[in-house]
């Protein structure tokens, strides 16, 4: 794991230039997070933090607590106990300090259907305080092959086109923290591959931190340098894909996922 300290400041004074090492807060820090709905613990004391510029996969079966975790990170949920900070801001209390620096994409959250792609992006661009909005929309449209679709209503697009529009919305403010929930769900293999390549490029060019929730193990294996596997509200395992494969003695992350989901544990011999 790389050092979460960033060299972020150059200060000058008295003719001398000093390089200041200032600790920048991790993009996401989850500390003993608990979320209980009535009597059910959806998330049960999880802790993790992300390294700036990394792509981390959040895996887990249905009801594992992924959505609750992501919703708390985005400030949509108040933790029962524990703490979540995003870019140094306590969520959800201080969310307005950082919401303009992050964004989110999910096929389960729709864009207004009657509005054209351009109108949608204009509205969200204004909400996120993007300057030079017209230029930004043109730029994103060119990068995401949306130029011909800009004046079409969002509701009349194919699933693949809608996903690209949702990505454009998620990138309208060039976020340094991007949360992606099933970014390639219901896409054909070609479009899904295109989206994955785009996510990789965006991380590299923007040095963005990405948290990716997915059920697609191929996607996670390709994109993520770290995988957090959740089960029944707890973190069952947390490591790089290569180390997980070695530890469980498996060839694919899907096999590892099934081992965890079915409670088979890892192969201690292989781990050694």
């Amino acid at each position, binding site marked *: 794991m790389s050092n979460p300290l960033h060299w972020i400041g150059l200060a000058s004074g008295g003719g001398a230039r000093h390089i200041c090492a200032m600790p920048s807060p991790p993009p996401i820090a989850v500390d003993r997070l608990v979320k209980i709905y009535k009597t059910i613990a959806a998330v049960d004391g999880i802790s993790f933090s992300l390294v700036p510029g990394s792509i981390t996969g959040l895996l887990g079966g249905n009801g594992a607590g992924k959505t609750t975790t992501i919703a708390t990170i985005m400030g949509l949920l108040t933790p029962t106990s524990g703490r979540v900070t995003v870019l140094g801001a306590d969520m959800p209390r201080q969310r307005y300090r*950082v919401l303009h620096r992050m964004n989110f994409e999910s096929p389960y959250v729709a864009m207004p259907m009657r509005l054209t792609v351009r109108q949608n992006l204009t509205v969200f661009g*204004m909400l996120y305080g993007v300057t030079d909005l017209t230029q930004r929309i043109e730029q994103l449209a060119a990068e995401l092959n949306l130029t011909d679709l800009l004046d079409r209503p969002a509701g009349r697009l194919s699933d693949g086109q809608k996903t690209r529009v949702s990505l454009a919305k998620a990138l309208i403010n060039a976020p340094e923290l991007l949360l992606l929930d099933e970014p390639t769900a219901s896409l054909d293999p070609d479009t899904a591959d295109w989206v994955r390549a785009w996510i990789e490029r965006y991380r590299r060019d923007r040095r963005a931190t990405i948290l990716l929730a997915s059920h697609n193990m191929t996607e996670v294996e390709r994109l993520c340098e770290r995988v957090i596997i959740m089960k029944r509200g707890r973190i069952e395992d947390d490591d790089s894909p290569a180390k997980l494969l070695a530890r469980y003695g498996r060839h694919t992350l899907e096999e590892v996922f099934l081992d965890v989901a079915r409670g088979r544990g890892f192969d201690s011999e292989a781990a050694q």
Partner: protein
Amino acid sequence: MTGYGEAAFVYSPRRVAAMMLRYWYLLRSSWPRLIELVYWPTVQMVTWGFLQFYIMQNAGFFARAGGTFIGAVLLWDILFRGQLGFSISFMEEMWARNIGNLMMSPLRPLEFITALMAMSVVRLSLGVIPVTVLALLFFGFNLYALGFALVAFFINLMLTSWAVGIFVTGLVLRNGLGAENLAWSIMFLFMPLTCVYYPVTTLPVWLQPVAWALPPTYVFEGMRALLIQKVFRSDLMIDALLLNAVMFTAGVIAFLKLLQSARRYGSLLQTGE
């Protein structure tokens, strides 16, 4: 290049404008929505207009009270459509499954409320102004002849409609679309109590204090005083304004509390029933 521009804690008119633009785009793209704005106010005004016309021909008192029914219908529509305009704009976000996008954006609750208030005025204008023209053409009732009184009536009715709209919006955020029917029906609770078509003295004595606790009652009494006795009761308007200040503040506080509760109970993740 892309920038973030705004300080984190600033109330942003640009975000309010963004939301208004979003609703304007929606209205512009949908003729059924535009027709709906005018349809019911027209039907109601025409029905009550003919009723008044009939009664005026048969009763001396109502002959003197010319226009009270049509005036009441038009003012009631300001109250009802004002609240509906507020609530429906919000409901569009729930129906479009867009509320998650908004709640994760830098849009502040008070900016959202401001945009919804502004849109309720826009929707009301689109719906009621044509109907006031029809009232003039069909029945010779000129709402605008009320002059300054109309401004006082309008402000008070809009404040009440916003207070109720804000409260209902909070309930829908907290309880999901299961609470949607409240948006359509809650204002009808006000109809008998605020004495839209009859004086407060018509109510049983024990119910009259309830009526006087509601700001629109003062407006409808004020309208009757103006049309029948030709007197503008500024005292009623000031009382209504004070009550509205209390109602509006209570509505905003309730909305913020319900939003807080929605964050606690996970309602923002479940925007269905």
